[in-house]
């Protein structure tokens, strides 16, 4: 994973796919359908959010499991940042879905089972983030939030994959609504949809990797500043001899 994050080919791929998704998604021919009309293009921007969210959250859980197997700070920050990115995707998915539903279903929130499930999933992960903030000790925070992450994910599976299939939904493909396949007679939608899913997911991973690196840098800074202040043992009002070191240090960071 670490070596992969440092390589740049997948970032170039992500940018290329995003450029393709946006241009092709907005300009290519789409099936002409009543009610949906041009809004069918939301398929390239809304649906990949859910794929991305589920993939990112799954990766987060994998790192939580790894953390419990072998506690290390790295796994903890991976789990946290993948969950964060998953939440961003989930919120974007909810917003884009609500916008679309406003024009096709008549109101932004129609108590659709999938919509509700997505909102509950967001609640679970907000609770995860709050749980993290209310634990002081770093190791305990990492461990307990890893446990909750796994526990919550296990209850999320029936929510996301079983419940929506048991009730009628307004979403295309459910409750008598024609699905993806019915619209897409000539597979034109797929030609943009699958690249869009990969592109958005890679964007999510990229975002996550930036956040992970930022965290690592902040952690190093904290450690350095502790090294500076703790051993001197002087009063706070005395001029700090560490000043020179500080400037030397900030230069080295630059």
């Amino acid at each position, binding site marked *: 994973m670490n070596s992969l994050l440092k390589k740049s080919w997948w970032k170039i791929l992500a940018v290329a796919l995003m450029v393709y998704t946006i241009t092709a998604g907005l300009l290519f021919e789409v099936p002409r359908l009543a009610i949906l009309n041009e809004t069918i293009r939301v398929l390239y921007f809304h649906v990949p959010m859910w794929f991305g969210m589920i993939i990112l959250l799954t990766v987060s859980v994998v790192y939580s499991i790894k953390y*419990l197997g072998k506690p290390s700070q790295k796994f903890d920050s991976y789990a946290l940042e993948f969950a964060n990115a998953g939440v961003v995707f989930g919120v974007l998915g909810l917003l884009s879905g609500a916008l679309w539903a406003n024009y096709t279903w008549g109101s932004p929130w129609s108590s659709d089972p999938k919509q509700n499930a997505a909102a*509950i*999933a967001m*609640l*679970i992960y907000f*609770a995860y983030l*709050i*749980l993290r903030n*209310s*634990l*002081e000790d770093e*190791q*305990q925070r990492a*461990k*307990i939030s*890893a*446990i*909750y992450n*796994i*526990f*919550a994910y*296990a*209850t999320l*599976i*029936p*929510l996301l994959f*079983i*419940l929506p299939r*048991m009730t009628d939904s307004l979403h295309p493909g459910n409750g008598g609504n024609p699905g993806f396949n019915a619209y897409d007679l000539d597979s034109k939608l797929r030609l943009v949809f699958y690249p869009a899913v990969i592109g958005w997911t890679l964007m999510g991973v990229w975002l996550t990797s930036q956040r992970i690196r930022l965290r690592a840098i902040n952690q190093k800074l904290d450690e350095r500043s502790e090294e500076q202040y703790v051993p001197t043992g002087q009063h706070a009002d005395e001029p700090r001899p560490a000043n020179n070191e500080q400037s030397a240090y900030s230069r080295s960071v630059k």
Partner: protein
Amino acid sequence: MLWKEVKLLFRKEVILEWRQRNALNGIILYVVSAVFVCYLSFNLQRGSLKVVTWNALFWIIMLFVAINAIAKSFMQERFGRQIYYYTISSPQGIILSKILYNVLLMLLLAFTCLIVYAVVLGNPIQDWGLFVLNLLLASAGFSTTLTMVSGIASRTNNSSTLMAILGFPVIIPMLLMVIRVSKNAIDGLDISVSYDDLLVLGAINIIVGTVSYILFPYLWRS
């Protein structure tokens, strides 16, 4: 071996609870007054509540009762005593005995709640067998989920708030299934309509139970 341990720990929980009955009486009174507050706020003639409202209100009361009753399963014990238990028994034994005990407690509370609720707010239930079966599954599910959540929340500073915010979203899938089956039972639909829902409910219970069993040892060591 594990079974024997669970049985012993379970007996310990029951005896402890029985010796200081004020906690138990307190939660029973909580149930009764919650039902009564609901009754008074609707200010109803008996039996004039719509079935949908009756059903939803019943399960919301049950949810809050469950969170309050089970929250104390880990928070109540003093730190020293917890360490003592952990030195003499296995984590699996502890979590299983706690879950079993909470299931028993939830059943007691659920039936108390049902009786008071039906007396005060009227009783539209047509299929009692299905309703009670559903109540059993719901009590088991609520207790299993919330026991683990209580264990997690008890490690934090503001455990009572966290108990609610960690517990609610996790329990919603279960609650949705329970409310659906319960609606079928009240309407007296044939049991075959509810097979799928009951199956999913049972499956969720098993998933949550297994995950708690696997994860608790890690929680215990922290």
